[in-house]
Every structure is written in structure tokens, then in C-alpha cells.
């Protein structure tokens, strides 16, 4: 029986199914992150009082898809032998741990809602969910990257576009963590897990530009600096954020032209990295990408800085007023740290890519 299966599925075709299963995991996690973003907006605007809300349905559909992907991934990995088995061992481990956390977060979340009502962003169930998402996303990204490392030629291939799907869930789950430790959305009737307001501001100012540049420069490098891949990744994130954080709030729809202006620095950074690989150019790219964070993380970032600057009640229709009133005060203060952290992000990205590629870069 085992032999006949081996005859049907050659190592190559097993590896292709393995790749596909990792793409399914990435897609599932992407759905979870989109559902999560929508959930935050839904909580801000509508304060749902039950577990059974549409964003939760999307979120747990994503979990189901990721679970199916993980089962297929693990079964295919079990059929690998020798080099391939060792090559993918680490990302598979991450995926397995991640899916256990992800699936376990569902009942924990339900129990939390049942006992304590509305839960905050930094609640244990949400952090369990985020940790699971992050590990799954990173695991499948590493597998996809390792699978596609042979594509070093100059022409575009499907692999370059798969990087977008691989990297987006990592970016979004990472930003979910950053939001957890900076947004003041964690105080409920039972618990107050809100981060201290000055810590939140400093944390956001340091970590968000770092994440932007680390992710986007990594994306470009993984795509052998092919023009377009970084831009597509950035623009896709803009579209997702606009769909989950801006469009559901009628008062913010007018800000869409402002929000999509951030396409410009993404394309500019992409052009620079396509033209030259000089270290100064890469750092310049990191600096540019770092400075976009206050615009990219609109509208949620309003709540972080408002706590220190105005401490107003930022209801749905007042978000843009507070954001744009703060802009001339905030931007001169954050632009320096944003540039520095953007540059550091590019340096760290290079080291992370070495790890992602494994021993056989």
C-alpha cells in the first residue's frame, strides 16, 4: 500500500501538495487577520455583546481553513525523506504548535465571553489566538520561501507572487501584537489590561516603523528585488485595512483618498530597491517605509496617541478629526524615531532572511 502510494506521488508532487497546503494555511490565517481587524472595528462601532458576530464567523472560517491546511501539510511532510524532511522540519513544527494554539483559542474565547462578557484586545484568549496565528503564518511563510528558493532567475514567476500571500499574514499578525500592546482597548468590567499610555506611545513609535520596513524590505529581497512585489504587498495591506477599519465606519469613508496616498512611498521604495542594491539605498528605503507608519495604521493609531495628547472620547465619527488635529503635533515628534527604526528594520530583515532560508541558502 505504502509502495503504491509512493509510485503515484513522486517526491516532487508531494512537495507541490506540501506547498499548496502551506498556501492554504497562509490564506486561512489571512482570513483570520481580516476577521480580527473587522472585529476590532465592529467592537468600536457597535459593541457586540455576544460571541456570535459576523467577524467571528469569518475569523473561525479562517481557523478551519488553516486547520485543514495544517493536516494536509503534516501528512505530506510525513512522506518526505532525507533532505526534504529536515529542510521543512522547523516550519512544520511551528505550524503544528500554531494550529494547536489557534484551535484552542476558540473554546477559551467562548468561555471568556460567557464568564466575563466583552473581552479586551490584550485578553488571554486573544493573545492565544494571535500567537497561534503568528506561528502558523511564520511556519507556512518559511516553507513557501524554502520551496521557492531555487527561483533566482530574472523573469517573474508565480513564486514571486506567492510571496505576497506568504508574507501578508505574518505582517498582519505581527501588527496585531503591536496593536495589543499599544491600543487602549483592553479595559473591561472585570479586567484592565490596558497598556500604560506613555509605554503604548513609545512602543508604537518604535515597533510599527520597524515592522513596516522589515516586512517590506524582506518581501522585496525574497522576490529578488523584482519590481512590483513589494508594492503589491503594501497595496494589498492598504486594501485590507481600508476594508476592515475604514469602510465599516461611514464617517471615515471620505478619508480613503488620504489613506491610499501611502501607495506612493511603497512604489517609491520598490523602485529604489529595483534600481540599486547599495546599502545606503536599502537604508533609505527603510527610512521611507518607516515614516509611513502613522498613515498606514490609520485609523486605529489615533487611539494610541490620543491617550497622551488629548485624552478625548474618540467615537467613530470623531476619529478623523482627532487624527488630523494631532498630525501636526505628532508627526514632528515621531518622524526621527520612525526613520531610525525603519533603517534598523532593514538590517534585522536581512538577518531574519538568513534564518528563514535555512542552512542551504
Amino acid at each position, binding site marked *: 500500500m505504502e509502495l503504491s502510494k509512493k509510485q503515484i506521488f513522486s517526491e516532487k508532487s508531494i512537495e507541490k501538495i506540501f506547498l499548496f497546503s502551506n498556501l492554504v494555511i497562509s490564506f486561512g490565517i489571512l482570513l483570520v487577520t481580516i476577521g480580527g481587524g473587522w472585529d476590532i472595528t465592529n467592537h468600536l462601532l457597535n459593541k457586540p455583546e455576544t460571541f456570535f458576530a459576523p467577524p467571528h464567523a469569518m475569523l473561525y472560517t479562517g481557523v478551519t481553513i488553516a486547520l485543514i491546511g495544517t493536516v494536509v501539510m503534516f501528512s505530506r511532510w510525513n512522506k518526505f525523506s532525507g533532505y526534504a524532511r529536515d529542510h521543512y522540519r522547523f516550519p512544520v513544527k511551528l505550524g503544528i504548535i500554531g494550529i494547536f494554539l489557534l484551535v484552542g483559542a476558540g473554546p477559551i474565547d467562548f468561555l471568556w465571553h460567557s464568564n466575563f462578557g466583552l473581552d479586551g484586545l490584550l485578553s488571554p484568549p486573544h493573545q492565544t489566538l494571535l500567537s497561534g496565528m503568528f506561528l502558523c503564518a511564520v511556519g507556512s511563510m518559511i516553507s513557501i520561501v524554502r520551496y521557492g528558493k531555487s527561483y533566482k532567475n530574472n523573469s517573474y514567476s508565480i513564486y514571486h507572487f506567492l510571496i505576497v500571500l506568504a508574507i501578508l499574514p505574518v505582517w498582519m499578525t505581527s501588527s496585531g501584537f503591536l496593536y495589543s500592546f499599544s491600543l487602549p482597548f483592553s479595559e473591561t468590567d472585570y479586567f484592565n489590561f490596558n497598556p500604560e499610555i506613555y509605554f503604548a506611545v513609545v512602543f508604537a513609535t518604535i515597533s510599527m516603523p520597524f515592522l513596516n520596513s522589515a516586512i517590506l524590505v524582506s518581501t522585496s529581497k525574497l522576490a529578488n528585488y523584482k519590481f512590483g512585489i513589494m508594492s503589491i504587498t503594501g497595496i494589498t495591506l492598504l486594501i485590507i485595512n481600508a476594508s476592515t477599519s475604514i469602510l465599516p465606519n461611514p*464617517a471615515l469613508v471620505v478619508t480613503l483618498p488620504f489613506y491610499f*496616498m501611502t501607495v*506612493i512611498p511603497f512604489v517609491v521604495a520598490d523602485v529604489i530597491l529595483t534600481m540599486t542594491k547599495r546599502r545606503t539605498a536599502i537604508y533609505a528605503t527603510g527610512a521611507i517605509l518607516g515614516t509611513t507608519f502613522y498613515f498606514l495604521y490609520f485609523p486605529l493609531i489615533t487611539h494610541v496617541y490620543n491617550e497622551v495628547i488629548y485624552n478625548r472620547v474618540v467615537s467613530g465619527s470623531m476619529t478623523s478629526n482627532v487624527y488630523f*488635529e494631532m498630525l501636526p503635533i505628532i508627526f514632528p515628534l515621531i518622524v526621527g524615531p520612525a526613520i531610525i527604526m525603519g533603517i534598523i528594520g532593514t538590517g534585522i530583515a536581512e538577518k531574519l532572511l538568513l534564518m528563514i532560508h535555512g542552512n542551504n541558502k
Partner: protein
Amino acid sequence: MKKFLISGAIITGLFVYFFTTLVIFPQEYLSHKVIEPQPIQNVTLSVNNISLGESFKISIETENKNDVADILITSVAFPGLQEIGDSVKIFSYDYTQSPRYIVPGNKINSEYTSGGTITAQYPSIEAYSRNVAADTAYQMTLGVTPQNTGTFEMYIKTIAIPHTTALSHYPYQGLLDSQSEYVSVFTVNVNP
């Protein structure tokens, strides 16, 4: 030459980006008229005099006028009570969110959200709805059974958020409560 042109395009692109996001768009959006939700409320008491042990009903109808409100809150406070206990029951309620029971010691907003948080001095019930379109009304009816003789007082007010003008709350004048917000005072005489 090609590199020179691309460099020029990059610098122009970044200039356009920062100029529009830091100057043009903020000016444009801040020039938009801020919404002004204007709540009004109508309160009906079933009786003005009762004997100790009897109950009365108080019905509050609140309507949001003029503009959409992100949140509409109607508060009924009982300054003579230490706790609501069995003295007050909700008979009917059609606000979109569950009512909040405020107990003395809870942190609550003051001065129509501009005064930070203060500690609640007496118990109250907050009824609230979210995303309330203009000309939308809600009602709540409470059944009250006072435990002592004398004058039983209730402070009633409605606040719309965003609170952008002096018309974003009701009443517009009257007694200032412990939150430094205007309230309408309703009383029922409880006879021995």
C-alpha cells in the same frame, strides 16, 4: 539620464506624498462640518404620591435629532439610594445595548466626556444605543419601589456622543449632578 529622471520622479513622488498627507488632506478634512447630534427626552411619571410599599412607573422616551450619534446614553440616577437592589426594575427597554448598572465607586465620565473620569457618588442605570440615526427614538420604563418615606428623587439626562455643542445633551440647563452635567429632577412623595 534614465537614472536622473527616475531619481527626480522619486523625489517628486515623496514630496507630493508628504505635502498632501501632512498639509492638503488635514486641512480638507478639518474643514468639514462636525456632526451635531441633538437628543431630546420626554419623561412620564405614573403617579406623584404613593404610600410606602407601593410602586410607581417612570417612562423615558429619548429621540436623537439633527445628526447621527455614535452613542446615545440616557441615565437615570437615584441620589437617595446606596444601591439599586430590588428598588428598581426595568419593565421595558428597546435600546440597542444592554443597560449598565453604575454603582457608587465606579469610574464614570464627567462634563460630557471632556472632564475625565470621576467616581460615581450614587447608583444609576445607563441605557444606551450605538450608531443612532437622526429621528430615531428609544424608550425605557422603570418600576420603582421606594424603601423609605419622604421625597424619592431621580436625576434623568441624555447625552449624545460625539458631544459637539451645548445641544448634544438634554436637558440644556437645570441642576448640575456629580458629573457636572445637567439633569432633570423628578420626585415622588412616599407617604407613611
